[in-house]
């Protein structure tokens, strides 16, 4: 199938949407499809062979922050030419409600158009003005995908209509191998955590409380914490005597994140809720880290009811401590959980997710003649 994918945000700037499109495009190419991505990019950026630049994005205030967006006649012309030359069977637009290449593509194209919605927000002033203006672009979209329940809810509330849910994938092979971080490494006593330290729903407080319970009787026990937030605030919640046993990495690069997953004996996801999918969990599973997670429904589902990772009662520090102690004392069980996790995570691999997306493509291209320029 010939697939044209439209990315609204600057390619070389790291972001969830860009990463999603890169992984999806690569999985589709690996599956034998012909994929072309159009994205805003700076002139000197080295782009992968499947990406076409739509020119530079312009920073403008939008929806409460400054966004780099590609709009205007020149960008529209570039998208028009790309569509004219591409001969695509299907056009896959990301974030068509954002004033950038996505909405431009809907404007200039005609034919089977699939749209994926990523963002979720409670209430957006920009969206309330935008909704009527977006109407004609939205009407051209034949199939809609949301990456999470939250994104789907946002879509329903702001623009109306529904979407199918296809969550983000994880590129399992990217996490499968990794060198432990210096000074760390599975030594029978490292518990890991990854996520925003200052976001209560990520549940770091529960883990810190459990650590305080376990630390006195386990001199080898250490915590490895990665993620943005104020380190002093976290250390302030740990008794002075154990502070040197807590490692705070702060924001980590993609490469160091992989290494962090390989540096722990137990990876803990103590989330209190609100996690629609748990991308962190699937990454840790890809790395084969033995997992200990709160039993919120999403985690229970991903971990196959405890088959691929141990579960504890959400928010219960004593239960976490007890379960962590059992895991740390049982290398055999950890090895088994690690194997099970690597196996279970395959269904979340991008290759599987991409196949799901292709099914959507096939549904809309079934009776259609392909994508062409809209000359009306």
């Amino acid at each position, binding site marked *: 199938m010939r697939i044209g994918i439209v990315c609204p945000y600057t390619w070389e700037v790291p972001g969830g949407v860009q990463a999603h499109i890169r992984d999806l495009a690569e999985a589709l190419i690996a599956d034998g499809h012909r994929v072309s991505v159009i994205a805003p990019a700076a002139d000197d950026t080295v782009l992968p062979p499947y990406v076409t630049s739509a020119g530079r994005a*312009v*920073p*403008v*205030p*939008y*929806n409460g922050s400054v966004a780099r*967006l*590609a*709009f*205007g*006649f*020149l*960008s*529209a012309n570039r998208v028009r030419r790309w569509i004219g030359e591409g001969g695509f069977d299907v056009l896959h637009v990301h974030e068509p409600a954002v*004033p*950038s*290449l996505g*909405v*431009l593509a*809907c*404007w200039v194209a005609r034919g089977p158009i699939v749209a994926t919605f990523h963002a979720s927000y409670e209430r957006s*002033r*920009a969206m*309330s*003005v*935008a909704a009527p*203006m*977006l109407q*004609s*672009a939205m009407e051209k979209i034949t199939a809609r995908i949301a990456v999470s329940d939250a994104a789907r809810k946002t879509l329903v509330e702001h623009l109306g209509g529904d979407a199918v849910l296809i969550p983000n994938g994880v590129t399992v092979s990217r996490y499968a191998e990794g060198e432990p971080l210096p000074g760390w490494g599975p030594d029978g006593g490292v518990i890991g955590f990854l996520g925003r330290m200052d976001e209560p729903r990520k549940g770091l407080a529960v883990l810190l409380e459990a650590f305080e319970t376990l630390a006195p009787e386990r001199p080898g026990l250490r915590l490895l914490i990665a993620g943005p937030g104020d380190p002093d605030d976290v250390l302030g919640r740990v008794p002075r005597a154990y502070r040197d046993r807590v490692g705070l990495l702060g924001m980590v690069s993609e490469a160091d994140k992989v290494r962090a997953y390989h540096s722990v004996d137990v990876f803990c996801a103590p989330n209190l809720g609100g996690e629609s999918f748990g991308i962190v969990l699937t990454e840790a599973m890809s790395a084969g880290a033995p997992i200990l997670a709160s039993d919120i429904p999403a985690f229970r589902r991903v971990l196959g009811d405890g088959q691929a990772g141990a579960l504890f009662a959400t928010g219960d520090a004593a239960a976490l401590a007890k379960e962590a102690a059992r895991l740390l004392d049982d290398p055999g069980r950890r090895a088994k959980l690690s194997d099970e996790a690597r196996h279970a995570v395959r269904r979340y691999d991008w290759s599987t997710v991409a196949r799901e997306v292709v099914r959507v493509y096939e549904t809309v291209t079934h009776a259609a003649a392909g994508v062409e320029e809209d000359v009306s």
Partner: protein
Amino acid sequence: MTTLIVVIALVVLTGVYISWRAGRLDRLHIRLETAHAALDAALLRRAAVCLEFAGSRILDPATSLVLAAAAHEARTAGPDEREHAESDLSKTLRAVVDQERFREKLAEHSTGAELLTELDSAVAKVVYSRRFYNNAVAVTRTAQRRWLARTLRLAGHTDYPGFFEIDDAPPDSLAVE
């Protein structure tokens, strides 16, 4: 007798002086209010022209969205957020109007040139009215701060006025003309 006349004369003179100062402060307050009304009108007018542009179907939908969102934010912002929202609208306008070949594209439409003239004037009026308002603020503040005005509370319940600080730099292509 002479002493009494001198005292009475002094009291009368002081009274006349104070009422003259109070009258001056009053005039300054009226000037300030007028300047504020003019500024408010100029800002609303600018937002209105932007919204009209966004709804005109002359621009591409992405540009329309960016412009409409910024104009809407500016128009609905509360007093505390207004300076921020109006600055954002100035920034957005520059990004939109300073696109390459923006003018040529607009010229293709019959209403395009008209709207652009209107935008040009609305943007300039924001710059002017803000300068006049801030001048009025500066003078009023100096007058209110004077010893006499403070001791006798000549300003009454009027608030100490604040400057309106925004980025109102016009788009390059409008400024050169």
